[in-house]
Each structure stands twice: as structure tokens, then as C-alpha cells.
């Protein structure tokens, strides 16, 4: 942990060397999220509600998605940027240092400008939390925390899968965007609006619904089922197969060296 903080402080100092660029990317992250928000706003301005979900409920869902994604993008950026780490030989350097590879990948990239998106999320929270009609009892607060944590881990897992694929091929990984960027973009609405099939896929294959749809139903009081509240825990467990896959990837890297 101490070493991680040391990495963080160096990276922060590096990024602050370019203050204008840092500020601009932060603002940019905010603006991109803001125009997405406007898209949502315009839709509700016209239609009022979707699939029985109100505007504030959707905003709450949107904010949860945005927060967990931007936290993952900020701290797990090393895996998101992994193709670069491989191609510039940085991973070889990591391999000749006496520390866990995953730790070093995580510590070598921390993208502080992703906080811009977080500001947007916080603004959404500040608006949606009081207006959503949720009675903020302890269990609701725990649910919210679990959703954020679950989201962070699921996104991290997806980034790790993406990084692991970089060991096997350098091409065609664009399709992973469907799961990462796609989840962020389309996950602003409760996943049930995309229909039964998509919801099933996002429950059993890529467990996005486990930290989004099911606990969200509990959060806004559509269900009292405690299992729905605890669904994000299963989402967190998604990281385990991802890490196993990563190990396989590292072994492959060691046998091909490229």
C-alpha cells in the first residue's frame, strides 16, 4: 500500500507537469458525460418515463454507473492501456522486478483526469438522491455502496480481460468496447428496458445486471428481496475468473515473449 501511494504521488506529479492539458482532459471528461446527460434529459422531457422508471430514478442509475466506471478507469487504467504497456516493452520491465505483476500494472498507471467524469456523477447524485423518493435507510445506503463496489469490480474485471487478450492478439480488441464503454453508455438506463434476452446475457455472461438492475430494484423499493440487494457481491466475484484468465495470459506471454 505504501508503495502504491508512492507510485500515485509520482504519477500525480508527472500529470501536474502539464497543468493545462490535465485541466482540459478533466473538463473534457465532464463535458462528454454532460452531453450524455442532456441526451437523457431530452428523452425524458419528451416521454416522461421509460418502462415504469421515472426521470430521477434513471438519473440515480446513471450516476451509479458513471461513478463505478470512472473509478475503475482511474485506478485500473493500467489494464485499460495495456496494449501500450506491452508494445513499448514496459511489461518486460515489470517482469524483471520482484513484485506481483498485477500490482505493478495497477500502480504504473493512474489516470487522475478521469475524476472529471466523477464530478458529473457527483452532481447527478446530489440532484437525484434527494429527489428519487428513496427513503435512505441503512440497508439502502449499503445497497448503494455495494452497487458502486460491484460496478468497480465488474469494470475492473472487464479491463483485465481486455488486457489479457492483448497477450494473444493485438488486433480486433475493439469489440471489448461493447462491454466497457457500451455498459457505461447503455447502463445509464435500468437494463430491463433492453428486453429479456439482453438482461439474461448481462446477468449470466457479463454480470453487469448484478450490480445494476437487481440491486437497483431493491434500492428504489420495487422489491424487498434481500438477494437482490446482495447481488453485487456475486458481481464482485466476477473478478476471480478474470484473474485466472490473466494468469493464463501471463503464462502465454512467457512462452511467446511478445
Amino acid at each position, binding site marked *: 500500500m505504501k508503495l502504491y501511494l508512492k507510485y500515485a504521488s509520482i504519477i500525480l506529479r508527472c500529470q501536474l507537469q502539464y497543468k*493545462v492539458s490535465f485541466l482540459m*482532459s478533466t473538463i473534457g471528461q465532464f463535458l462528454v458525460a454532460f*452531453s450524455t446527460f442532456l441526451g437523457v434529459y431530452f*428523452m425524458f422531457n419528451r416521454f416522461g418515463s421509460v418502462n415504469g422508471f421515472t426521470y430521477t430514478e434513471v438519473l440515480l442509475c446513471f450516476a451509479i454507473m458513471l461513478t463505478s466506471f470512472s473509478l475503475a478507469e482511474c485506478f485500473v487504467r493500467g489494464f485499460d492501456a495495456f496494449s501500450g504497456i506491452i508494445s513499448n516493452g514496459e511489461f518486460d520491465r515489470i517482469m524483471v522486478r520482484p513484485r506481483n505483476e498485477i500490482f505493478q500494472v495497477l500502480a504504473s498507471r493512474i489516470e487522475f483526469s478521469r475524476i472529471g467524469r466523477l464530478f458529473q456523477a457527483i452532481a447527478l447524485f446530489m440532484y437525484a438522491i434527494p429527489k428519487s423518493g428513496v427513503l435512505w435507510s441503512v440497508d439502502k445506503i449499503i445497497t448503494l455502496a455495494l452497487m458502486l463496489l460491484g460496478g468497480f469490480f465488474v469494470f475492473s474485471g472487464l479491463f483485465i480481460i481486455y488486457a489479457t487478450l492483448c497477450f494473444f492478439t493485438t488486433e480486433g480488441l475493439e469489440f471489448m*468496447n461493447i462491454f466497457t464503454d457500451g455498459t457505461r453508455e447503455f447502463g445509464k438506463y435500468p437494463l430491463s*428496458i433492453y428486453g429479456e434476452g439482453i438482461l439474461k446475457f448481462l446477468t449470466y455472461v457479463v454480470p453487469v445486471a448484478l450490480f445494476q438492475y437487481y440491486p437497483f430494484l431493491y434500492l428504489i423499493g420495487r422489491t424487498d428481496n434481500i438477494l437482490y440487494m446482495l447481488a453485487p457481491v456475486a458481481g464482485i466475484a466476477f473478478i476471480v475468473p478474470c484473474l485466472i484468465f490473466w494468469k493464463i495470459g501471463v503464462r502465454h506471454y512467457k512462452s511467446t515473449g511478445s
Partner: protein
Amino acid sequence: MKKYLSFFRIRLINGLQYRAAAWAGVVTQFTWGGLTLLMFWAFYQNGQNIFPMTFSELSSYIWLQQALLALYMAWYFDNDIFDTITSGNISYELCRPVDIYTMWFTKNMAVRLSRALLRSMPILIVAVFLPKPFNISPPASVLSGLLFLISMILGFLVLIAFSMLIYISTFYTMSPLGIRILVTSVVELLAGGIIPIPFFPQSLQTIINVLPFASMQNTPFLIYNGYFEGNDILLSMLLQIGWVITLMLLGRVLMRKALRKVVIHGG
């Protein structure tokens, strides 16, 4: 002209080299389009009467948007051009016997066209065979199909003429970052990249429709799917022509000014 064609050819071969990337791109965009339609479908269930177009029209719009993404995406910029400007290497470019504005303009066109060429066909072909109303329908008539093609080219020119202004602005700001970020977020929204312009609040639409952004992807797609009819088509296409001319003239003037500055100050 020949050098631009050969440049285009190289780009195309280059793009083909990355077969997996091409397939992945097609799959990604196809999924993206599908999910977008499902999202609109959910809203459609809620209020068919306030849906600004038929769902089938929307489907055509979304599939065209995905298929032609490479032509109209606002966030794509050629980093080489930015580097040329900020590093001062522009002085070398000035020594070449080509017009820089035209060169950069065609370079941008070539990159986008070669990408679109590779990816549009598979997306459109699959989209044709999707179940109704999620499929792409043929244009309303032969005439509107023809007008769509013209408007598509015009919209493409508007977009590139606009991104030229962004490149040129770098001569003055010396840092492309800020303006780029603004553009990616604002243009995407106002061009109808996030949701189609007819879904905007009515009062906003009247303003947005005359801005150059609406003349990019919005106009050709709305001509194709039949949302624009009769006079609307004519007016919107005239507006497109107006914006192409205005933006290109503006670009050339600003470019000449900027280059004069470069020559005087020596980069």
C-alpha cells in the same frame, strides 16, 4: 489528383491488413446500433403518439449512422496535422508544391472514406434482413435515394470543412486539447450523434437545425428515411451547400492569415 488517389489506396490496403480490427469494428457498431434501437423501443412503448417519427424511420436513421460512423464521427482528428502545426514543422510543408488546405482536406477525406468503405457494407447488409421494424428500409423513392447520396456528400464536406477550422485554430491556440474536447462533446450532441435531432425539445430544434452541425449527418439521414419531405429536403440541402461554402471560405481565409503569421514569425 493522382497523388490523392494513391494515398487513398494505401489507406485502404492499410485498413485491410487489420482484418480482425475490421471485423471487430463491424461487430461493435452493429451491437451499438442494436442496443440504441432497443433503448428507443422502450421509449416507443411508452408514447407512440409523441414519437417524432415512425419507428421504422428511426431504425433506418440509426443503421445509417452506424454504417457511416467513420464519415461523420466528430471526435476523429489526424494527430499528424496537429503535430505539424504545434512543432513548427509547418514551415517544411510550406515548401511543398501543394496547397495545404486542399492537402489536409483530402487527407481527412481519404482516412474516413477508406474506413467507412470497409465497415459500412457488412452492417447495412445485416441491417436489411433484421425483423421489422428494426431493419433498415430502402429510401422512400428513387429520387430521395439520389438526393440522399448528394446530401451525404454535402454533409461529409460540411463535417470536414468544420474540422479544418479546428486544425486551423491550433495555429492560434498552439494547443489542440481544449478545443478538441469541446468539439467532441458539443458537436456530437448538436449533430444528432447522441440522439437524433427530432427528439430534442421543439424550441431547441428550430435553433439547432440552422447550425452547421445539423447539416452533417442529420440532413442526409432524415432525407433517406423520409422524415424530410418536399420543401424540407430542398431547404436543408440548400443550407448544407451554404455551410460548405461558408466553412470552406472561412477556413481558407483563416488559414491564409495563420500562414502569413507563420511566415513572418518564422514558425
